[in-house]
């Protein structure tokens, strides 16, 4: 197949590409970039004036739930959701059942994903066996099977000595430790950010210090070991500052935040909407401000969604009982364009960089990007078009989006991965979707 994408804004901030031109994909590669490229017989021409063509997005923090909780998400539905959101690659967390803590489980996920198209699924293995927080899992074996990092995400590694060993041991395999920073003794039983809103709602709060103590500890352990640390889902201003200072010290620390933290605050919980309950929780507008600044300045080099599917029957519950976690893959671009780019908090260039070259860097991969001869991994989207999020029409099996009913700007049109193109409307035919609806 050959595709000629005409008059798109080619945007690859990392390679300094930002111009309106035509781009030809041939044999899975970017064959040619230029103005007024000639249409030849077998080209499929895509008129893309007003659209942006950028490197396909990479989400280094998703939960695909398979194996174990296939009623919430499967690898198949997860990669469909990813493609619909413009993501060409996702790194999935190991908190499945059983967890991804060995060679066979890592291999299983990769093999499953290969059945469902070109979206790359990169498993993250466990730090500890069974995610029990007691003994190290076999990093080397998992890396050989294809794991791109290790994490006990969802739970912190509470034992500081064990975390130290993990940061030491991972070095020989050149993989990052993805840390879920949380002092559980401080966050215990909490369900939202601690502050005036939790007081008003009568809900148990989680102070941001629970996260910050975790980040501070892991940064110091990184200093101790010379390890490689990636901080997951930074949600607070203090967290951004800790990462900033760690970088100033020259430590090998990277960090991410998620679109929902850049868009919402704890005020969004006044209706007890469990689809806005996640851990770490939505914080205050001052924290959101600091996160946006952190992304703009590159302290946070990654925006990752922490896509966390939960079925309707688990989320339709008392706020205290509903599980933590929200969907992210399909709304990420729209949320970022609508809540950050259009109001002027972040540039589109920054957002694209944090969804492409930023995450590549964390995984230690070369950023392919937009240049002739490079393998095609491209996302086409219309930044000025809008859509209304209908939870019932998402590709994910679950419905727990924090943005249901909202009009979002930024519509993904197609994902080009090697020899394949996935148009945004194709994946919508997910027949095996359960017939549950959120009212």
């Amino acid at each position, binding site marked *: 197949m050959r595709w000629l994408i005409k008059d798109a804004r080619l945007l690859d901030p990392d390679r300094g590409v930002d111009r309106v031109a035509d781009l030809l994909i041939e044999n899975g590669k970017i064959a040619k970039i230029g103005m007024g490229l000639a249409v030849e017989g077998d080209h499929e021409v895509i008129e893309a004036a007003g659209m942006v063509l950028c490197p396909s997005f990479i989400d280094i923090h998703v939960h695909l739930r398979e194996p174990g909780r296939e009623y919430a998400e499967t690898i198949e539905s997860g990669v469909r959701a990813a493609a619909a959101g413009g993501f060409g690659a996702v790194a999935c967390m190991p908190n499945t059942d059983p967890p991804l803590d060995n060679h066979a489980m890592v291999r299983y996920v990769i093999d499953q994903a290969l059945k469902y198209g070109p979206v790359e699924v990169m498993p993250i293995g466990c730090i500890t066996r069974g995610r029990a927080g007691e003994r190290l899992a076999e990093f080397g074996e998992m890396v050989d099977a294809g794991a791109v990092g290790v994490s006990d995400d969802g739970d912190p590694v509470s034992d500081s000595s064990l975390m130290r060993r993990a940061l030491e041991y991972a070095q020989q395999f050149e993989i990052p430790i993805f840390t879920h920073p949380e002092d559980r003794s401080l966050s215990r039983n909490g369900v939202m950010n601690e502050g*005036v809103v939790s*007081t008003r709602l009568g*809900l148990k*709060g989680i102070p941001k210090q629970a996260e910050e103590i975790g980040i501070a500890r892991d940064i110091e352990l990184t200093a101790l070991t010379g390890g490689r640390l990636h901080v997951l889902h930074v949600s607070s201003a203090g967290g951004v500052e800790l990462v900033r200072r760690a970088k100033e010290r020259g430590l090998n620390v990277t960090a991410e935040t998620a679109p929902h933290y850049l868009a919402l605050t704890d005020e969004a919980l006044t209706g*007890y909407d469990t689809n806005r309950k996640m851990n770490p929780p939505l914080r205050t507008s001052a924290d959101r401000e600091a996160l946006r600044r952190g992304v703009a300045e590159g302290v946070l080099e990654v925006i990752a969604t922490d896509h966390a599917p939960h079925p309707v029957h688990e989320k339709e*519950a008392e706020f205290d009982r509903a599980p933590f976690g929200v969907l992210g893959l399909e709304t990420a671009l729209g949320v970022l364009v609508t809540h950050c780019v259009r109001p002027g908090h972040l540039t589109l260039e920054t957002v694209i960089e944090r969804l492409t070259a930023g995450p590549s860097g964390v995984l230690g991969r070369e950023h392919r990007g937009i240049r002739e001869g490079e393998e095609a991994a491209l996302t086409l989207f219309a930044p000025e078009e809008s859509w209304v999020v209908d939870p019932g029409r998402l590709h994910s099996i679950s419905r727990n989006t924090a943005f249901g009913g909202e009009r979002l700007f930024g519509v993904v049109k197609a994902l080009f991965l090697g020899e394949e193109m996935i148009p945004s409307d194709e994946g919508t035919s997910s027949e095996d979707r359960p017939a549950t609806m959120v009212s």
Partner: protein
Amino acid sequence: MKLARKHLLGMEGVSRTEIETLLNSAETFKEILDRKIPKVPSLRGLTAVNLFFEPSTRTRLSFELAEKRLSADSVSISPSGSSSEKGESLIDTIHNVEAMKVDFLIVRHSAAGAPHFLASRCDVAVINAGDGCHEHPTQALLDLFTIRQHLPTFEGLKVAILGDIAHSRVARSNIWALRTMGADVTLCAPRTLLPPGIEDLGAKIHPRLDDLIDEMDIIMVLRIQKERQGESFLPSSREYARHFSLTRSRADRMKANSFIMHPGPINRGIEMAPEVADGPRSVILDQVTNGVAVRMAVLYLLAGGETDHALAN
């Protein structure tokens, strides 16, 4: 006057006019309750379900009596333990109750927001009878009603709420309601039992009971739950009592015409001395009596009734 709302989920956002309408209506029902046959047909044909997921004696009895005195059909259920332990979710329980065609759900639940969740998922009028540490609006209304019986105005009234503010739905509902009515609210508690940002609700904080006791018109005492010691909110109830218990000698320093309230149940000897609870300044049993009239008013007005309407006969 009518009440333009379907549910009563909390005192936050309830206007002064609405509160006055409710209290005026309760006044009428109070008179009815003093009659020989304390019953009116106002809610005949309507059905109320009291759904108490958390144990309660007085609130539940108070609602049941209010419903019966208004001639509503009423049923009470107390799912033993949590419904989820029995495999049924709250939403399923409620859809089943709703399917039996009821008009009111009176909900007590340990999870904050549970009544709000139900109100947004079913078509029945929901009254919050206490949700977690969030709100207990009918308690605040009966407290206001009781205050109004004894004092001419709320404006500038000095009210202290004493005790475990952090875990108290009564405190939150009273702060909203009293502030709306123009009263001056001071919270007195150890720092561990004050939730963050509570000042933003419009209340002041004072850590020493002895400094404010002689200025207050009303002291509302909250129950200190024994398990708070285990969670290290307090070193011991003995130490708490030393600084915050409403003892006889402290009560004696209160100014003339001031009085003492407690939503019950009382831990005698911890948050207040037994002789203070039963003493001349205590209006605790008035609160209980007024609870029925106030809940009648809430049910009646939510059902679309009007205050100046001829109620009975």
